[in-house]
């Protein structure tokens, strides 16, 4: 029975690790400026914890294989040195790994979430609502109109509750359900929730941030690869949570300007 356990455990460990190593399922290619740092941090953690995982599983399997009771009356033997090598191994090995991961990791995190946005970044207002994202560009006057929750009316496409009649800055705001951004230019999103918690997650951009009702949360990144990617919601927001998809289209600057002009015409 001990040998069976050891064999099954070894097979499980080998297969699981192989799928990780062979990257059968893996992160999509990164397209953001800060992405490589996150990928590096993930790889470092993957390697160190993978080694820890394989060693401990195989140690367990080996000991179970060797020390089955064969009723030959041999004496039990304590682990050489008692518990101290265990504590030492844990503190030194895991402690060192934690130190390394924290030092590098905190810089990566700080780079994304703790540094102020680039001053000339393109600001786009994002509103998440029960079950769609809407994006608002300031339009030629460069200023966003005021938001009036009581005027919000989805039937008339007034998602942000703008009041164009009295608020001149709101007249030229462009409201679209697709996020178009110029490639290579820093983008600053201001996330606001209309009703409940939502989240903004683009796997390729390696960026994720919750929307919290009552707060306006800044999020900045820079896309480096043109293409069309999916924005999904990762914070449970109700029955349509699975279908809150929007697209982020990264395009060269001229194409972006043209896109903006077309959308402005439709407003």
């Amino acid at each position, binding site marked *: 029975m001990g040998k069976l356990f050891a064999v099954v455990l070894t097979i499980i460990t080998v297969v699981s690790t192989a799928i990780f190593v062979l990257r059968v399922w893996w992160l999509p290619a990164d397209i953001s400026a800060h992405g490589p740092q996150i990928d590096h941090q993930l790889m470092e953690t993957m390697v160190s914890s993978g080694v820890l995982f394989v060693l*401990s*599983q195989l140690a367990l399997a080996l000991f179970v294989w060797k020390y*089955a009771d064969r009723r030959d009356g041999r*004496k039990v033997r304590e682990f050489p040195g008692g518990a101290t090598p265990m504590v030492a191994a844990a503190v030194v090995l895991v402690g060192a790994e934690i130190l390394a991961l924290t030092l590098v990791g905190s810089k990566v995190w700080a780079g994304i979430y703790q540094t102020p946005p680039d001053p000339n970044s393109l600001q786009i207002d994002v509103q998440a609502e029960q079950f769609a994202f809407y994006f608002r560009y300031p339009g030629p006057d460069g200023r966003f109109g005021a938001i009036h929750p009581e005027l919000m009316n989805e039937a008339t496409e007034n998602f942000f509750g703008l009041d164009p009649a009295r608020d001149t800055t709101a007249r030229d705001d462009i409201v679209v359900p697709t996020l178009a951004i110029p490639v290579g230019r820093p983008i600053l999103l201001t996330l606001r929730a209309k009703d409940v918690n939502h989240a903004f997650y683009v796997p390729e951009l390696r960026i994720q941030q919750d929307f919290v009702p009552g707060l306006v949360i800044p999020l900045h990144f820079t896309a480096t690869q043109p293409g069309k990617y999916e924005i999904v919601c990762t914070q449970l927001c109700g029955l349509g949570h699975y279908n809150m998809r929007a697209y982020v289209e990264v395009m060269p600057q001229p194409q972006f300007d043209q896109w903006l002009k077309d959308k402005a015409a439709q407003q």
Partner: protein
Amino acid sequence: MPDIAAPAAVHRHAPPQGLLRRHVFSLDHKVIGKQYLDLALVAVCTGMVLSWLMRLHLGFPTVPIPGLDKLSPNGAAGGVITPEYYLSLMTMHGTIMVFFVLTTAPFAGFGNYFLPIQVGAEDMAFPRINMTSFWVTLVAFLVLIASFFIHDGPALSGWTAYAPLSAVGKDAGPGQGLGQTLWAISIALFCVAQLLGSLNFITTTLDLRTRGMSLARMPFSTWAWFITAVIGLIAFAVLMPACILLLLDRVAGTSFFIPAGLVISDRLQPHSGGSPLLWQHLFWFFGHPEVYIAILPGFGIISHILPVFTRKPLLGPRVMIGCLIAIAFLSYTVWGHHMFLSGMNPFSATLFSVPTLIITIPATIVTLLWIGTIYGARLRFTTPALFCLGFVSVFVSGGISGFFLAQPSIDTYLHGTYFVVGHFHFVMGVAAMFGIFAGTYFWFPKMFGRMMNETLGKWHFWLTFIGVYCVFMPMHYLGLAGNVRRYSAFTDDYMKPLIPLHRFITIAALFTGAAQLIFLYNLIRSRLRGPKAPDNPWEATTLEWSTASPPPFDNFGGRPPTVSHGPNEYGVPGAAGDYVMQASR
């Protein structure tokens, strides 16, 4: 703490007479322990059926499930689960499993039954309070289950019930009306029950230990229940007011968690100034200690059972207890790692990631101590032993994935994906369950005086051990591919190619679930017709094995034991049968 003289055996309550007093409204901690375990059994069966329905829907969304439209005409018309019904199933699955299985069985169930016996007491410190806490837990469970049968169906805001989705009321969608109110009432009741239970556990451990049972000589399972009771005391004392504030927000129109200007279902909500993050802070201050409440009894049970089947003392008993205490303290400093991306100040994310990584050190030490105990052992492969080994292996897998999620930078990608689902299922859904299985197979002879069938037990182990790896390891791969959790359907372009993996998980989950029926059958059959069990079938040393199976009404037949040895006396050269009982002269 000086050795406490055994209390004069004052029969505070004479053996019960009436049928009602003996089996239903019993003051005997053993009966209450069994009642908790039976409640947990019903709860885990319900929870497992819910997980089947969820997996069937994810793997095969358009296949109608016969009979489901009878259970819920609104939620699953024609047997096809609708998105809101899937989220209700998920919420109830999470809530039932975390509260009514993983807190009730290992802590309240086994703890109530065995803590008094292991410390040599005749019953819990306050039997009436002990009975009340069971019945309040049962009422809480019934209130929760009742939300299945109301018009709008159960709540759908997950077991975490984030405001304002949980706080606004029926405008927030189906299930958020009466269903969410019943959820909050059920959890508030559960908090009351657990606080009373913890009070009983701590008082019994501190005051009612028999002569010679110093703290150092307490078995590891007793230590684990004691520490879990302390964690539970503080954690549930925080969840309780949070639930009260949530109920006030929902019913009385206050604005603790709901900010101004929310337009939900085209209606401007009449609230202002609340903070949704306040709910998350209060919930997760309870939430993370809760996951340790679920796993620490498992640590205690494994450290209690492993020496019995390796026939050698646990490696570093003091270190083990030290680690349990260290984990208990650290568990209150890490709750922020659930909220790295929640709009909380990013500086505090770094602040919370440090203790989260530090807590992996005591967890690693505990694992290495178990593996070290197996070194040089004379392993006897009984079913409880196999479940202990399974526990160690599965806890390692679950703990390792914690490394990724503890770092904010990697959590940026992995938060809210199936990687998290794989992580907490491995640690709580499987490791804690293996702890419960090990405890059941190990203590069944003592509780019912009959042996469980070993062959069925081994079949149950092998199918479950391989099954859980097939179910939960692929979830880590889904997480790496960015598959978002809590989705009722995968219509996104980059998630559609992952559906075959979901189908594999669904099939594996059905097989693993079916394997549990072997356990259920073994339980019922052995209770009725299992072979008679001797007092000490596993040749263990702790006090529960030095009394009859099942123990008499006051545990030791009027003669409270005097303890002369620690719980770890295995492989003792020269001792009769290589072990020395704790209560031997």
